[in-house]
């Protein structure tokens, strides 16, 4: 796979991509604004038939980072989309209507980080029990710093 060519194509196709970087061997990280998310996911999942792997989420200094991992099994590359959400407005569109398999992980991220996924078909708790206190999110930075 010609990665230089691929990066150029992506930049031409989707205007507004913030940064594209090869982080390690066969790993591409793409930072995008929220508005491009659904378009790229649709292009990857439906047109290029990349395999959905998982979504990671973390709380960093700048905001909540939601990282969508997709795998191109023909070339062995892992394509990662990184969307940064501000701390005061943790919400993003749900990709479950396109990628059916993402239903669980989006619910899990709701549990652990308190991100709101707009348009999720079943926005209920996945791992935490019903008596878990409202508004307690164990993966937030505040909790991490308290525990260190």
């Amino acid at each position, binding site marked *: 796979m010609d990665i230089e060519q691929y990066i150029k194509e992506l930049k031409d196709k989707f205007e507004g991509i913030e940064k594209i970087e090869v982080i390690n061997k066969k790993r591409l990280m793409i930072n995008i604004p929220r508005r491009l998310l659904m378009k790229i996911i649709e292009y990857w999942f439906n047109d290029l038939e990349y395999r959905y*792997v*998982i979504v990671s989420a973390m709380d960093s200094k700048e905001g909540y980072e939601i990282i969508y*991992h997709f795998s191109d099994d023909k070339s*062995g590359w*892992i394509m990662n989309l990184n969307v940064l959400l501000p701390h005061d407005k943790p919400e993003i569109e749900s990709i479950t209507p396109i990628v059916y*398999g993402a239903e669980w992980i989006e619910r899990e991220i709701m549990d652990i980080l308190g991100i709101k996924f707009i348009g999720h078909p079943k926005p209920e708790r*996945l*791992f935490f029990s019903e008596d878990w206190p409202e508004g307690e999110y164990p993966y937030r930075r505040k909790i991490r710093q308290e*525990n260190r």
Partner: protein
Amino acid sequence: MGKKKIVPIGPYHPLLEEPEFFKLYCDGETVVDMEWETGYNHRGIEKICESKTFEQVFYVVERICGICSTSHPFAYANAVESIPGIEIPLRAKLIRSIVGELERVHSHLLWVGLAGHFIGYNTVFMWAWKYREPVLDMFEIITGNRNSYAMFTIGGVRRDIDDEKADMLQKVLDDVQKKTELLTGAVMDDPVLHARLKGVGVLTAKDIHDFGAVGPTARASGVDIDIRRDDPYAAYDLLDWKVITAEGGDVFAKAEVRLLETFESIKIISQCLKMLKKEKGDIKAKVKEIPEGIGIGRAEAPRGEVFHFVKSDGGNSPVRHKIRAPSYVCIPTFRKSCVGGTISDATLATAAVDPCYCCTERMTQAYDWKSGKQVMNATELIKLSQKKTEEIKAKMSEGKIRG
């Protein structure tokens, strides 16, 4: 048309790797919808990893699953080593591949045995588990443990395999090969098994893509993916082996893929052992520190791709460690494979993607949706599945259906 009933499978069930709760909505015998609840066994491992050093995380992730206890360290090692770009010595690569493939052999044999039990073929269960036993003994000789091997470390492995052990292992493998051939022949040629397993719990290639399912579940539906070939790690790109796929997507195809994969694994180990005898060198590369960065590693576990995402800030422990086990994407496919089938097939379709069987607590009960009265328990559900096999056998002997 009977009344719509709900059949709960779980939270503790012999078919499920960890406590999970499936609700089957049934109309008579047919499953019309399915729901799942999970989280009964959420241990917060990702969070625990954040408080351990990079070296200690190996022993934490090893305990995610008792059966594929090498695949998580494998993927984690690939992730962490990719941050500074460490190239591990060939000898370490070979030993890693040997442990990984031995695990596949024992895990697949375990699944075949249990699948045999659920359909009422206890002979298959006894055989498969008997042949699996020497593999576990070999694990003990090579690694010191039958499970949770603690073989991996950053930059290589912790124990060497000397020539004497290599010969022992080769001898055991030759024996396992012969016995598994016998078992495969018995399973593949049995007309009752063909009638019982074909067309049950079918997943199409589109279902696999929608859910992102991996491993033997995907390969049984004709989706040709295998991380060992597509994104090679350890010594897999140096060896001669092939990816097994099957068409059909049913339980039979999944059994076929797993049985044939066992032979490929044995082939891989034999090649590794030969190379190991020639290759004298270190088993561990020197690693100073893990710099700031992101590492993404994956490994092909017996059940499919394991995915680890590690973010380091230059300190001595990960700031974020995301783990995705194959069952996380394979379990939701139950919704496709069970709906439209009968309750007696649902048990089998749930078992077909091979969620591991660590948990020994068992509790499955069927309740009448309206009265709340218990109508079935776990033993009865398995019996229901076994009864169907008996019926097929009886019909076959009368000549009503053909295998």
